[in-house]
């Protein structure tokens, strides 16, 4: 019998950080683009009238709605990956502790209470 957790928890924190970073960049880009589009659309619509302009309004609203949904989805995954990263850290610590205890037991068996 060896130590109870001989292998590290499988989780690449570097890759997880890179994914979170890319997701946050995209969320920021979506937010800024949505704002920029709204501002430019409002300016353009001061002179643009008629049915095509009204259809454009619908599209701008659709873009905002879709962007909000995308941002929500990406944020959820940021949370999921971050939580997973935390969970992996916590789990690794628990494994490390258990392994350490196991090693301590082998080094100082006399310290163990009788009957255990």
């Amino acid at each position, binding site marked *: 019998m060896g130590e109870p957790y001989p292998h590290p928890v*499988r989780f690449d924190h570097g*890759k997880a950080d890179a994914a979170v970073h890319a*997701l946050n960049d995209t969320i920021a880009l979506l937010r800024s683009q949505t704002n920029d589009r709204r501002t430019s659309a409002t300016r*353009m619509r001061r002179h643009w009238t*008629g*049915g095509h302009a009204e259809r454009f309004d619908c599209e701008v609203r659709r873009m905002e709605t*879709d962007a909000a949904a995308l941002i929500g989805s990406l944020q959820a995954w940021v949370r999921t*990956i971050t939580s997973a990263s935390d969970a992996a850290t916590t789990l690794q610590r628990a494994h490390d502790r258990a392994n350490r205890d196991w090693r301590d037991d082998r080094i100082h068996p006399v310290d163990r209470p009788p009957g255990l």
Partner: protein
Amino acid sequence: MGSGKVGAIPGELTSWAGWARGLDDDLRRAGRRVDEAVAGLNESGPDAGILGRVPDLGADVIGYAVRNGATDTWVGQVGEAFYRIETRDVPPQVLRGESESFWHGAATVSESDLAARVGADPFAEGREDGDAAATAERLRSAYRSGDDERVRQIVEGLGGHGRDWDAAFFEELASPFDGYGGPELISDIGWSLSPDDRSLRAYDEALGRATQSPSWDPSLSQRLFESFDPTGEGDPQARFNESSRREAALLRFGTYSPDLLERAFAVLVATPLRDPDSLLTAQAAGDSEVVGQFDTVLEALSRSPEAAAVVLAGSGETTTSDADTVRGTWARVLLTFYGKDVRSARALGDAIRAAGRSDDDALKHELLHGIGNVDWKIVPDDARAGIADAVASNVDLLSRGAPDAQGNEAEIRGRAIDAGFLGEKELGWKQRLFVMAELDHDGTVDSGRQGELTRYLQAWVGAHPDAKAVGWMFGMAVVVPQVEGDQVRGEYHMPTGALLGGQAVGTALGFVPNPVSMLSGAALSWGDTAWAGVLSDRALRKQLGTDETELKDLAQTKEVVKLHYVTLAYAGDGAALPATMRDAAADDPAVVARIQALADREGPPSGQPPYTSRELAFQDRLPAVENGVNDQFENANPRDYN
């Protein structure tokens, strides 16, 4: 959409389009980076109890950007339309100096004019493009991650979309971002699917549909098949085999646009065969891998008649293993190149069959002319079914002369030269077509192909009013079978063939076969109406003792149908011609109807009796005619009457 006035500053709308498309591109790049990072995380294999597979989140971002791009492009089109409508009555010399003020000034136009210029609703299309782009990104990501199962799932779900969706899908797949992706990704994915016919079929068929979409970018057809660079690192032959196999996998199943197939043929077949210094000239003939890729291209052509006609009628060149240079149409070059390679020959025959069904008569004439100039004995037997089909499908085209620069048919003498009926020692090219269609390379008659060709001819005759063309075609089609031991061999023996052709003419036209009709039909099968008349006149004068007056009357019969008309009258009972015909053929209503139709159309000039009683009263002298014309025919030489 109302019919009132609407306004905008055109330049603001076009500027929006340019600016917003930049945003879309930024977002697409961000989406790709997300997928890259997510793929890296998934590939690192996180403990499943901690984190399951993260989906391709970037694909949705890309789909969103592509959908927005359709709207942004549309805004630019609306701005352009405002400008065009606003300035349509402005003189060009004024506009030249004032265009900026029109772009940046307020334009007021009729809404109906605007709707006429930017009528289509772009939003549904944008939604579809966005969905296609997101799917493409998922496939790219799955392929990049080596997730074969997910690649298969996505690819097998490609069916059921329209051509435009497919085009948007492949164009997204081909769009390189940060040096990642590009047209080679399309062929790489196709190659990865090639062991699995079901997946490759779904992928190729989607690509084929995409290439036929009006929104397909033709430059992508060019970029999908890159010209081979023999100067790169490594063994060029091996590299060519590798790259061409990879690209040929894209052509296994779909039906592609002509421009893509022309490009594929140029890169994968024409270039290596055409270049005398190429690594793939003489040795290519014996390289089954290379030939296999040629087959794939030809098989793709066989599913696209218009492309097959363009490619196979195009000018080609190669050097054979005997170091002979062969030039001509690609059909001719390939027939010569392939020799007797069974699979290749069949693929080539299928491509020729398809080309024969193109709508372009000029190309088909060029194609058939090229094939007809190949020595019929070296044409591989497995290509002959395709050739026979192309000949059969184009009997009507072959019955006409080659069009001149103005699109007019050549003179009948030219047609006769094409057919080889003017006494040349060699067969004419059209004759060779029939010979290679009906015989194998060793002269064995292929009764299946011969029967098929005859059935086509009969069907064509039924719908074709031009009797001289009928005679001419039958004259060419008749290959005289000769039994040699257990084998039936065929030979083109002109007098006999022409005589049988003439008989076929008579039969086809619904006439009672007799030596006179055979004679005139035989003359027709030489391709010259005048000869038919002269031959018949002389034969009749000799055998019947007719005088000059009668000959003059008969001279009016040189139009082919009239000639047969009289011919039939000789076999009749001497009564008025139409009645005679009806009586003679009373047992066959179809023949009666045919004769009546001819009589109605080909009757003598108005006010004259149909034909003289002398013309119609030869029945008692018919046996003499029968005996005489056979001799006359056997000894006849058309040049004597020229």
